[in-house]
């Protein structure tokens, strides 16, 4: 691998807290919850009726003709990409578009539309179901849409590894730049809500009927969210030469397989500790270098204590000297875009020295005994931060960012 380094020169966000980076970050710092009643479909038959939905679809800045063809995921993905590209200051008319790639995490994509197609098929038969509702079903639609809208010709990929998808996409994007296969990669992820994900997590009894409470003793499960987080990764040398504002450095990532269970975390914490150690090795860091961990923190009964153990195993004594927090307490679990929106928040934490809190925290859990920044944001000198993403199937990814 060539010795090229990767920096973040642009950020964009759409979430339940707001339709841009500023409002999303302000919500996180204020400890505001984006969780509310489900409005996208009739949830009356479900045990749980809450989600962190994007309440009003943003304007992605495309033609009305194209807008009609977009899924909900495409709309928020394109909106966040537009903001991130603008933030990067790249003049695409002067760039070699063959050197700009797109790598996103995605999964749900246009499933909400597909579900309507499936239901019409069941209720009305083929003649009553419009197949165009199925067009946006593949998970890679948003990746292709971003390339289409901005004319990007470089390498492209979509990662679908459930809750670690978009963290892994950051890793692939960085490798493309480090290997000299691209100079800029639009990366991150977009994912939205659907009956299937809500019903699925309900069936596993992994969803809380109240807003999720990561690391709290009374936690009962997750709340699903929607978001897009987009980061512009750029080779550091060219970014500096063009005078770009460098928000943070992407230092490395860990990518491992738990090989344990399809839906349960490995309870000793060792599997995910291995991912964290792999990240430290990739980033050439020692445990003592880490100032903050943006935790996976799903609020499921199993994840939070296992993750606490992982952090202790990987960071040793340093685990008790630093703070960790879960953005999911406010944004919900954004599934295939969780890693991306949390990476965006991690970069902002490094930039501002403000750690977003873990809200809805009431009662400490002795099995989750690290400093989780309960309920109120905190100032901290964060030079280096990790962000954890652990998925169904044992797909574990941890990314590391550092101060520019």
């Amino acid at each position: 691998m060539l010795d090229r380094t990767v920096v973040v020169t642009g950020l964009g966000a759409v979430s339940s807290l707001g339709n841009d980076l500023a409002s999303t970050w302000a919500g996180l710092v204020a400890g505001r919850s984006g969780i509310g009643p489900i409005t996208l479909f009739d949830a009356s038959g479900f045990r749980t009726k809450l989600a962190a939905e994007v309440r009003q679809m943003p304007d992605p800045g495309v033609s009305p003709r194209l807008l009609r063809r977009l899924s909900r995921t495409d709309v928020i993905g394109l909106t966040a990409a537009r903001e991130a590209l603008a933030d990067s200051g790249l003049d695409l008319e002067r760039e070699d578009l063959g050197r700009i790639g797109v790598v996103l995490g995605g999964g749900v994509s246009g499933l909400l539309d597909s579900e309507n197609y499936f239901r019409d098929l069941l209720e009305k038969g083929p003649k009553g179901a419009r197949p165009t509702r199925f067009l946006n079903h593949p998970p890679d639609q948003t990746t292709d849409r971003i390339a289409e809208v901005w004319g990007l010709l470089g390498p492209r990929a979509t990662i679908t590894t459930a809750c670690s998808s978009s963290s892994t996409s950051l890793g692939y994007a960085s490798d493309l730049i480090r290997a000299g296969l691209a100079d800029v990669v639009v990366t991150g992820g977009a994912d939205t809500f659907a009956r299937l994900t809500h019903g699925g997590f309900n069936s596993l009894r992994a969803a809380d009927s109240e807003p999720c409470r990561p690391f709290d003793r009374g936690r009962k499960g997750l709340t699903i969210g929607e978001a897009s987080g987009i980061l512009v990764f750029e080779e550091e040398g060219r970014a500096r030469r063009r005078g770009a504002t460098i928000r943070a450095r992407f230092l490395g990532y860990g990518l491992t397989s738990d090989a344990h269970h399809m839906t349960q975390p490995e309870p000793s914490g060792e599997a995910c500790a291995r991912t964290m150690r792999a990240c430290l090795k990739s980033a050439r860091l020692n445990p003592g270098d880490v100032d903050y961990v943006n935790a996976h923190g799903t609020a499921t009964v199993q994840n939070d204590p296992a993750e606490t153990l992982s952090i202790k195993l990987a960071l040793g004594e340093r685990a008790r000297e630093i703070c960790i927090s879960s953005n999911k307490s406010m944004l919900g679990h954004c599934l295939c875009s969780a890693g991306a929106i949390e990476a965006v928040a991690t970069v902002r934490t490094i930039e501002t020295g403000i750690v977003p809190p873990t809200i809805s925290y009431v009662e400490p859990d002795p099995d989750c005994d690290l400093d989780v920044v309960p309920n109120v944001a905190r100032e901290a000198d964060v030079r280096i931060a990790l962000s954890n993403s652990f998925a169904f199937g044992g797909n574990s990814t941890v990314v590391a960012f550092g101060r520019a």
Partner: protein
Amino acid sequence: MREIFVTGAAAVTPLGRDLETTATRLAAGESAVAEVPASEAGERKGAAYAARIATFTTEPEMPKAKARRLDRASQFAVVAVTRGLAEAGWTMAGHEEETGILLGTGSAGASPLVELERQMAVESPESASPFLFPCTVANAPASVAAIELKIKGPNVTITQKDPAGLNALFYGRLLIDDERAKAIVVGAVDEWNLTYQLAYERLRILKTATMPGYVLSEGCSVVLLEDGASARARGARPWARLAGAASAGSPVSPQTRRARPEEIAATIRAALADAGLPASRVGLVHASANGVPWIDAAEEAALADVFGAAPRVDRIKLQIGENPCSGALQLALAARALRDEPGLGAVLVNSLGAGGNQIAVVLTAP
């Protein structure tokens, strides 16, 4: 880049439960493409086609009783990955963390997803099966295989339409180069599903009796990419060397296959340049040709542009259908050809996907 070999391969396809049977039947000109009978799909205007695996058992790689809990794509993956590792002589014990898995897919999870949607719509919202839900996510086959075989290195699923299998190789190469694993199973897995077939038929993108188009396929094909030093140290006999690859995109709608000959040719040339080879060294091309006339014509023009009098061109998707698993099968066949045909030189595998994705891979004799 570090030297990387293909040290083994395996395939579960509509033409066979192993690579040798599949390769032999393809060479004999057999086709897996068959009509989807009206008894399955109901009345419609024209016959439709698919390349499906008619009968399949996971035994001896996995007992039937255990396999019953798995979705169809995961069953394919467990068999193909197990056999691929065995073909390579790669021992998992003691090497779990040095072994990775990267699979592409276009349809894994389709049947569990459709069934879960039916359960919620017809029975009740709360009746979704907790056993089916994890299988609806595209990463299930790779993760099931990882759990079964104790693969603890990188584990990634890529869903970039038809080139997804080649994309798995593309990323796998970077991961080995970065010393994240010594060996990585790369390939793709797919399952055929009637609801998806009917939707695509009605969108008029599949072959029918009266209209050209492509045919959906299913199966799982893999190759084992291995770090050169690792392969030498254990005395492995490589099938092929991963010499070069290129990945590019065209800015078109996700449903559109951009088919400009000059763009296709540019990506192929980039892969050859990455391999440091002239076009004249290529003895075999596995084309993306899938039965859509204007795409196939554009690729033909590109091949003529790059190679002049083109080398031998295999168009197996016309016999075995198309999905990411077909591109992965082409990788396996390319490695096998280099193992078995001295003097072949190099093999190019080209893959074009809807949305303007293209990946070209060059393998050479080891």
